[in-house]
């Protein structure tokens, strides 16, 4: 047996690699199969995992995805959603976002937001890690082996801190993040645009809660992001809210009461309008039917035509066009110069959206792939490229924001301009202001404005250990390097002595290594819970298979092969197992699977023998025929 399998490039095969779309509203995981990239789905064929985490501190219970969403309405205080909006941010950055969600913010959230959930505090990377862990488990179960490496996508405009926070989340989930890839780039890969020699691509991404437009240039298999724009508070949820308001208004008009504080009624309305919205992507009109209960006037019913729907959501759709025009302007392009338009996000199924996009870009947009899945599909393709060392495709990303350093009077000196291809670097010379000064403070910021107060602080550090010299004599060269993931590292060298300086970069936002270590330790307790749940799911699945086989054998074949006593024993074992499956003790389920196996062993043998005899008979017949 070979101990390590080596591939052609000499790299050890290190398990499966997946692509993950970690979305504001939903997340997905995809992989490269022999037939191309595919989304990994659950038993009911669903690929989307709602990006929602529920935590009940009294029971110390953690739920992710669908199960967490079910509790969002009934126990809103225990669920965190839209966590992507808070990645890599301090509380001051997201006042507006925070005012829109019911989350309780822990004290000390200036640098990294902490969500208070009972007696525990979770940071955005931790919440994201729970989602990633769920996706990782889904993929690991699918492959039957541990998945340890992933490519994760982020919006093209994500800054250093947000990218770093995403990487931290992967790390916390036990994933090695091979690459952080921009979502629009991933979408272009999914459509195979990289196969073209040269193209300018617009990616229109209208998701659940955000809108992004990106203009990319592809040339000879290399992608460059030319510009990005968008609206961080515009998405399918806003369309739903317009429809909900419409319905609430009508109910109020007919009953005199507005049922918006009744969670049950509100939820029923929400589900009904979402269904109507979906139906209007396929047909010209639909009926909204809601059972509101007696206190809200019973049954609500109304017809909604596509024309009416377009009128209700028209303004919102129109609002996406401004950012598109700005992105074109930033890229210095006319709409006619766009070669391909790609639609991403569930809301791009809406006919009005497609029409408006087509009008603006004067081109039929790509809608062939499932718009919810294109980003994950592209991430899987990139993951495959990175894992296999393919050279036919190369993503050249750019920094979304300029990098600068604070100079005298709080003015910013830009050292790396936005839209620079990464990796990118810059060197800056520093010196002392007073005699015998041994340390120099450096403040790194990200942003487009001139003053430090308008930019976002990235890191502060001190160049230490400078030998005492007259002011202005020391020459310390500081090198800033943005790596292929858009993440900054800093190094310093004394020009005179050639000595490397130790730099301790303290990120202004984000988590320190120690904090991450602590979180990793904290997460073990949940890992324990995860293992138990997985065991239970697996045991149940196996039980279902065994029960189905035994019941079938008993019904169809047992007659005449075994006596009544044996049949009763099998029936008993089946009942026992069925009971165990209803509970959640996986060990008990395992025991009863074994018991059923034992009870039906004899029957199975007889059936097998019978099959063998039949097979032999067939073979003899065919041999005779041939002979």
């Amino acid at each position, binding site marked *: 047996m070979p101990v390590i399998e080596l591939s052609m490039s000499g790299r050890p095969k290190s398990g499966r690699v997946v692509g993950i779309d970690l979305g504001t509203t939903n997340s997905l995981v995809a992989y490269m199969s022999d037939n191309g990239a595919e989304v990994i789905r659950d038993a009911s064929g669903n690929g989307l995992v709602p990006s929602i985490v529920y935590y009940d501190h009294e029971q110390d219970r953690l739920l992710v995805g669908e199960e967490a969403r079910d509790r969002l309405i009934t126990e809103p205080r225990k669920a965190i959603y839209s966590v992507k909006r808070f990645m890599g941010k301090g509380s001051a950055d997201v006042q507006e976002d925070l005012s829109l969600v019911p989350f309780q913010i822990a004290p000390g959230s200036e640098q990294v937001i902490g969500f208070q959930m009972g007696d525990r505090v979770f940071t955005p990377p931790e919440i994201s890690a729970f989602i990633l862990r769920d996706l990782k488990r889904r993929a690991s179960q699918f492959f039957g082996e541990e998945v340890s490496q992933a490519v994760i996508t982020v919006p093209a405009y994500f800054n250093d801190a947000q990218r770093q926070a995403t990487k931290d989340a992967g790390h916390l989930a036990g994933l090695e993040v091979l690459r952080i890839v921009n979502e629009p780039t991933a979408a272009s890969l999914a459509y195979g645009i990289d196969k073209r020699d040269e193209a300018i691509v617009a990616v229109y991404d209208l998701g659940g809660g955000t809108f992004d437009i990106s203009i990319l240039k592809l040339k000879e298999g*290399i992608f460059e992001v030319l510009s990005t724009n968008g609206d961080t508070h515009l998405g399918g949820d806003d369309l739903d809210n317009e429809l909900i308001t419409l319905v609430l208004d009508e109910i109020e008009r007919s009953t005199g009461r507005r049922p918006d504080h009744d969670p049950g009624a509100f939820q029923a309305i929400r589900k009904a309008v979402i269904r109507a919205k979906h139906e209007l992507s396929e047909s010209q009109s639909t009926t909204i039917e809601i059972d509101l209960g007696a206190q809200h006037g019973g049954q609500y019913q109304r017809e909604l035509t596509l024309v009416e729907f377009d009128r209700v959501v028209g303004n919102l759709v129109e609002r996406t066009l401004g950012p598109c025009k700005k992105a074109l302007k930033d890229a210095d392009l006319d709409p006619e110069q766009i070669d391909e338009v790609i639609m991403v996000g569930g809301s791009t199924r809406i006919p009005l959206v497609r029409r408006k996009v087509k009008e603006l870009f004067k081109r039929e947009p790509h809608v062939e792939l499932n718009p919810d899945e294109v980003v994950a599909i592209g991430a899987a393709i990139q993951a495959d490229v990175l894992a296999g*060392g393919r050279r036919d495709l*190369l993503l050249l990303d750019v920094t979304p924001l300029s990098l600068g350093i604070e100079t005298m009077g709080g003015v910013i000196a830009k050292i790396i301009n936005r839209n620079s291809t990464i990796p990118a670097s810059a060197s800056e010379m520093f010196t002392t202001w007073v005699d015998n000064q041994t340390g120099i403070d450096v403040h790194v910021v990200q942003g487009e404005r001139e003053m430090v107060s308008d930019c976002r602080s990235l890191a502060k550090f001190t160049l230490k250990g400078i030998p005492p010299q007259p002011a202005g004599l020391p020459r310390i060269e500081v090198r800033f390097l943005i790596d*292929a993931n858009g993440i900054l590292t800093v190094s310093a060298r004394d020009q005179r002595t050639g000595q490397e300086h130790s730099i301790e970069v303290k990120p202004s936002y984000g988590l320190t290594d120690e904090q991450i270590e602590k979180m990793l330790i904290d997460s073990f307790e949940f890992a324990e819970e995860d293992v138990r749940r997985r065991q239970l799911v697996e045991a149940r699945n196996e039980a279902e298979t065994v029960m189905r086989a035994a019941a079938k054998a008993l019904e169809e074949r047992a007659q005449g092969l075994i006596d009544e006593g044996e049949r009763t024993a099998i029936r008993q074992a089946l009942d026992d197992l069925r009971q165990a499956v209803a509970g959640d003790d996986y060990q008990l389920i395992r025991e009863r699977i074994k018991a059923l196996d034992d009870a039906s062993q004899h029957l199975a043998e007889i059936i097998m023998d019978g099959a063998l005899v039949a097979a032999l008979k067939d073979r003899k017949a065919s041999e005779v025929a041939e002979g």
Partner: protein
Amino acid sequence: MAEAAINTGRASQSECLYCRTQSAGPHFCSECGKIQPVVAGSDYFSFFHLPRRLCIDESELEKSFYALSRQFHPDYFMSASAEERQASIECSSMLNDAYRTLRNPVARAKYLLTLEGYKEAEKKAPPDLLEEVFELNMQIEELRAAKKTGDEDEAAEARSSLEEALIDLHKKLQGIDERLFALFEDWDSILGRDATADGKKPLLDRMSELLSHRSYIRNLVRDIKEEL
């Protein structure tokens, strides 16, 4: 072709980090083929194996950029040794920085000036523009004041004269660019004749001056546009 360019570059002084071959090729060792750290003292021109000429075929440059990207990018060194990964990041960041600078004629000229020991010149108004600048600043002030008081007629008048001025400034910019490109050609031709420092200096001085005027006018244009 970029592949060819890689081998025709100046010989590297360095020794291969891995196999200790002397004068291993630049970027990659001629013996073991492994990626090398950026050669100390290289500039953007030498990194692309280009002489310090100012007229550059930008589509050729782009081709080299893509070809070298495919050789240096960190994606291709994900399972290589730490030294190789470091070298790959260094080389590809240098490549990106160099390409960004050299593909733009103005950035390229500014970069050449710093290589030749010039500091970035202060933005200065061209002498023939001094009077106009004074006039323009007055008009900007007038527009600002008219906007404040809500005097539509006054604002419209200031606007139209500023718009006219913009057209004129754009023409001036064009003129500067033409003179600049003519200097590029002069520069390239004396480079071919092994020019001395004395021969280079007048050309570089004039370039530096033109660039300073250019920046000045561009700032002015930006200010006017903002106010409009």
